[in-house]
C-alpha cells in the first residue's frame, strides 16, 4: 500500500510538472515520466500485459512522436501566442466547474471498494486474450475497425494536396 501511495504521489508530482514546465520539450519529458509511473501502477495491479503495452505504445511510440514534432517546431518566446484576458477568465471558470464536478462525483463513490480486483490473474496475457476474444469479441473488432478508419482518414488528409502530374 505504501508503494501505491509513493507511486501515486510521483504520478501527480510529474503531471503537475508537465503543465508548469516552461519549455515544451521538458514538459514532454515529464509526461514520459508520468506514463512510466502509470506502468508501475499497472504492475502493482498485476496487469502485466497492460503495463508492458502502455510502456511500448505510449512511452515508446506516441511520446517519441510528440517529442519528434516538438523538436522540429521552433518554439521561441516571440512565437508564443498571447492569450486575451477574457480567454483566461473563461479558462478559470471552466476549470472551476470541472473541479466541482469531479469533487461531487468522488463524494458519490464513497469509500473505495476492496473487492474490486476479484480475479488477480486477469491481467496476464493468456486470461486477457481469452476474455477479449470470447466475451468482448464484437466490441474488440469494432474498435479495431475504428482505428483502421482513423488511419485511412489520416492517409487521405496527408495525400489530399497532391497535384496531378505536371505535363
Amino acid at each position, binding site marked *: 500500500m505504501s508503494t501505491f501511495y509513493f507511486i501515486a504521489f510521483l504520478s501527480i508530482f510529474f503531471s503537475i510538472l508537465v503543465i508548469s514546465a516552461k519549455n515544451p520539450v521538458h514538459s514532454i*519529458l515529464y509526461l514520459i515520466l508520468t506514463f512510466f509511473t502509470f506502468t508501475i501502477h499497472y504492475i502493482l495491479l498485476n496487469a*502485466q*500485459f497492460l503495463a*508492458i503495452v502502455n510502456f511500448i505504445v505510449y*512511452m515508446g511510440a506516441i511520446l*517519441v*512522436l510528440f517529442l*519528434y514534432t516538438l523538436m522540429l517546431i521552433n518554439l521561441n518566446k516571440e512565437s508564443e501566442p498571447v492569450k486575451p484576458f477574457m480567454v483566461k477568465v473563461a479558462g478559470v471558470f471552466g476549470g472551476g466547474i470541472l473541479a466541482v464536478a469531479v469533487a461531487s462525483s468522488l463524494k458519490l463513490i464513497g469509500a473505495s471498494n476492496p473487492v474490486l480486483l476479484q480475479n488477480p490473474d486477469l491481467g496476464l*496475457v493468456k486470461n486477457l486474450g481469452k476474455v477479449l476474444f470470447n466475451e468482448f469479441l464484437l466490441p474488440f473488432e469494432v474498435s479495431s475497425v475504428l482505428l483502421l478508419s482513423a488511419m485511412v482518414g489520416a492517409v487521405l488528409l496527408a495525400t489530399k494536396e497532391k497535384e496531378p502530374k505536371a505535363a
Partner: protein
Amino acid sequence: METTDLIFRIVLIVVIFAISLVVAMYSTYAERKVAAFFQDRIGPNRAGPWGILQPLADGGKMFLKEEIIPTNATGFLFIVGPSLAILTACIGSAVIPWGSAIAIGGHTFDLQVTDINVGVLYIFGVVSLGVYGIMIGGWASNNKYSLLGAIRAASQNISYEISMGLSIIALLMLTGTLSLKEIAEQQHGFAWNVWRQPLGFILFLVCAFAETNRSPFDLPECETELVGGYHTEYSSMKLGFYLFAEYINMFISSAVMATLYWGGYNYPGMDWVAAHVGPTIGPLIGVVVLFGKIFFSIFFFMWVRWTIPRFRYDQLMDLGWKILIPLAIANIVLTGVISTLLK
C-alpha cells in the same frame, strides 16, 4: 534454499553484466580487426600481442579526455542522454535464457535472471526506450547536426519497430507463448524456429540492424551529411557511453535473435551429451553453444557493415514502410493459413 537462490541470482546478474561489458569492449577490437581483414590490412597490433590490449588503451583514453559541456547545451539533459542510452542497453539482458537449468551441489538453478511471462514484449519495451537516449542527447546538444541525427534516429526506430513487431507476431502464432524461456525450451535439439519462420527471421534481422543503428542503416551518425550525428558535441566518456551502448545493443540483439530463431542454447545431439557429461557440464556446453551463435551473429553484423554501403534516407523509409511491413503482414497471413491447414 531461498538464500542460495538469491545468492545465485545476484552472482548471475553480476556475471551477465560483466560479460556484456567485456563482449562490447572486445567487439570494438573485433570490428577493427574484421574491417582490416576485409580491406586487406593488419588492423590494431601495437598494444599487447596482436593488439588485444587495444580496448583497454581506448577505454583509458576515453576516461582521460577532457569533459566538455557546450555553453548553450541543456546541462542536465546533456548528461541524461548517454546515461539513458547505456542503461537501456544493459537492462535488456535480464530476460534472456542463457542456458537450461543447471545443477550445482544438489541445487538446480535457472540460467536466466527472471522469467516474466511477457519476456518478448519486455525486450520490445527496452528497445523502444533506447531511442530516448539518442533523442534527448541530440536535442540537448543545441546543435543542428545533432538534432537532425536525433530526429533521424527517432523516425528510423519507430518505422522499423513496426515491422519488427509484425515479424515477431508470426513467430508467436507458432510458439503460443511470450516467455523467452518457454520459446527456448520448445526448440529442443534441432527444432529451431528459423526452419519454420525463414522470412520472419530475415525481416527481424533487417529490423535489428536498423534498431541498433548499424550500417547500412547508420544514418543518425552519417558523417558525410551530419558531421557526427547525434553525438557531434560529445566528448570523453559520454561519447564512450554512446559508442559502447551501440556494441552492447548489438550483443543483446544477437542474443535475442539466437534465442528466438536459432534455438538458443539447443544444439543437435544435446540429449546424448547431457546423458554422458552430467547435469552440471551439459547446460554449460549449451551456454557455450549459445555464445558461439551470438559471436557468429556479431561477426555477421560487422561483415555487413564492411560490405554494404549506407542507404539514402528516403531509401531507408521506403524499405521500412513499403517493403518490410507488407512482407511482414504477408508472413503473418501465410503462417496462419499453413498452421491451420496442417493442424
